[in-house]
């Protein structure tokens, strides 16, 4: 058994794979302040699901923002490499990964073997990330997971000109005051996220098939806007937020295989 743990800025994820590389269990929890504790929580959860003890796990690879704070991991690998590997597992001919997490977004060009060819990250500003959507959901007084379905019902998307989370929030409040429909505002927000992703795609050069990973991929409005903007199909795995942890688990297996 091989375990991948992804400690992101907002959520901690774990994926357990068996000796054939098949996913056995997964878990998602809040990262909180104590990364080691969060890692332990998700690791305990997947071992319980699989009904195994931790000592049955051959190799543990940690990834994500808190990857270096997990003392029980055998190795730390960056989330860029892990998302590429995990996405390739879900979409075997994948050539580009768009990962939008809690506090950063990235575009990764992937080679046929899963090797990262190039990448581009936006981590200076919360705009275009999961946190951006959280702030906006709060302003619009709706649960985060309702944003995607609502965005799909928009008929006249609002134009959100600001690229900064704080100023975009002011703009959203102005749009609410102006009587703009909530679904149109949400769709406008999805479009603004897609515009930021589009600029990163341009920098590394568009390639396809594209897999979209990270928690924001659960928002269908963002995926649809991105699809329209890039003019290509965006493939969203069934559990996009665990792809980094899945990649970490697969890399743990590959490393163990290599070392015999």
């Amino acid at each position, binding site marked *: 058994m091989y375990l991948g743990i992804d400690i992101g800025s907002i959520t901690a994820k774990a994926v357990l794979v068996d000796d054939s590389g098949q996913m056995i269990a997964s878990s998602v929890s809040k990262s909180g302040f104590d990364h080691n504790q969060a890692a332990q929580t998700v690791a305990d959860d997947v071992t319980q699901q699989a009904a195994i003890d931790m000592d049955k796990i051959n190799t543990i690879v940690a990834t994500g*923002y808190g990857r270096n704070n997990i003392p029980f991991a055998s190795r730390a*690998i*960056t*989330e*860029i*490499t892990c998302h590429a590997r995990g996405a390739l597992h879900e979409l075997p001919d994948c050539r580009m990964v768009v990962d939008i997490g809690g506090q*950063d977004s990235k575009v990764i060009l992937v080679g046929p*073997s899963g*090797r*990262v*060819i*190039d*990448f581009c*990250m936006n*981590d200076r500003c919360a705009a275009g990330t999961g946190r951006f959507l959280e702030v906006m959901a709060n302003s619009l007084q709706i649960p985060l997971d309702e944003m995607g379905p609502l965005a799909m019902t928009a008929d006249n998307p609002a134009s959100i000109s600001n690229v900064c989370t704080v100023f975009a929030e002011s703009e959203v409040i102005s749009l609410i005051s102006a009587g703009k429909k909530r679904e149109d505002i949400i769709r406008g927000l999805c479009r603004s996220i897609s515009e930021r992703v589009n600029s990163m795609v341009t920098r590394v050069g568009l390639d396809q098939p594209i897999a979209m990973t990270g928690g924001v991929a659960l928002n269908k409005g963002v995926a649809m806007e991105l699809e329209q903007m890039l003019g290509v199909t965006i493939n969203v795995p069934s559990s996009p937020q665990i792809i980094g942890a899945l990649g970490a688990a697969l890399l743990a297996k590959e490393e163990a295989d290599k070392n015999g």
Partner: protein
Amino acid sequence: MAEQSAGPAAIGVFCSYVPLELIEATGFRPQLITGLEAERSDPRLPANLCSYVRRCATFLDSQVAQQELSGLIVTDSCFPMLRLWDNIQERANFPFQYLLKVPRLNSQSAIDFFGRELEQLAEDLSLINGIAFDKEKLYSAIELYNHFRSLNQRLLKIIMVGGRPQLAARLTGLHASASLQNRRELNLQLENLLAEIEGSEPDVSKAQRPRLLVAGSHFIDHKLMSTLADLGGEVVGVDSCLYDRIDTDLIKADKNDPIPGLAAGYLYKTPCPRMRANREHLFQIGSQTDNGDYDGIIFLQMKSCALHSYNLPVWRNMMHETGVPLLILEIEDGEWASPRTVTRLEAFLESLRG
């Protein structure tokens, strides 16, 4: 920087266009201002101005600068440097403050012009030190610095061979402390390092690491070199416009009139994109990548450095043609050590290892 007090008075310089030999020959000690100790938030300068210049402006207000420096030489090499000069004129009060004009070409007429500028600088420096400018002393200083260059070139050749992942960090670490020492002492330390290295074999097992060129418009921090080695890479080449000119050809100076040779040497093969000759410089790097000297290039782009940003598309195209992976980090001066930037470095090395 704070420790030095004995010996000749220090003249601070900000840019690698200032011939350090000239300062040495006029009885001063050249001190490269890195600004690394200072904050990047000088309130008198706009936030989108070069962070190196902002740091330098903050540093010049510090007690250390006031105690250490007897003078400053700024070059008109770029717009932010000129704003630094404005800033210095408005509020600094060092005994010697000088703006050195640097041409943008290395044609004969440009070299002649720069030679005249250097002659004037030498006269002015000598005057405040109460001495007459002595061309023989300048020639001796050129010889001293040529020895420094030749030692560095030997070390860089060894670094290029690979198998000594921490050697680039050690060399750049010595250079970082150069502002605390006189050049003779630095040369001695370089000779000692060479003797130690030449007496040992490279570690073949470490020769498999990705071979990196670190380039761009940042100071080459030895801690960055060390971090890259710790992450599993090996820096085998350095090419930064703010770095000491360690790999340029030796200055070919005439003993009776060394200034023209000095002027020509300092306008040749600079990594600064303001020079037309820079295109040749880029093609030289391109040919090195063609030769397989580098597995990857890390380009540290100083945020808000317009000059280097113009060159980025050229770098991208060239690396695309040669197939050598390029990581561009557009960051503020000294920001490479932030966890987010280290993640990018780590991911880049992971991609090179495959």
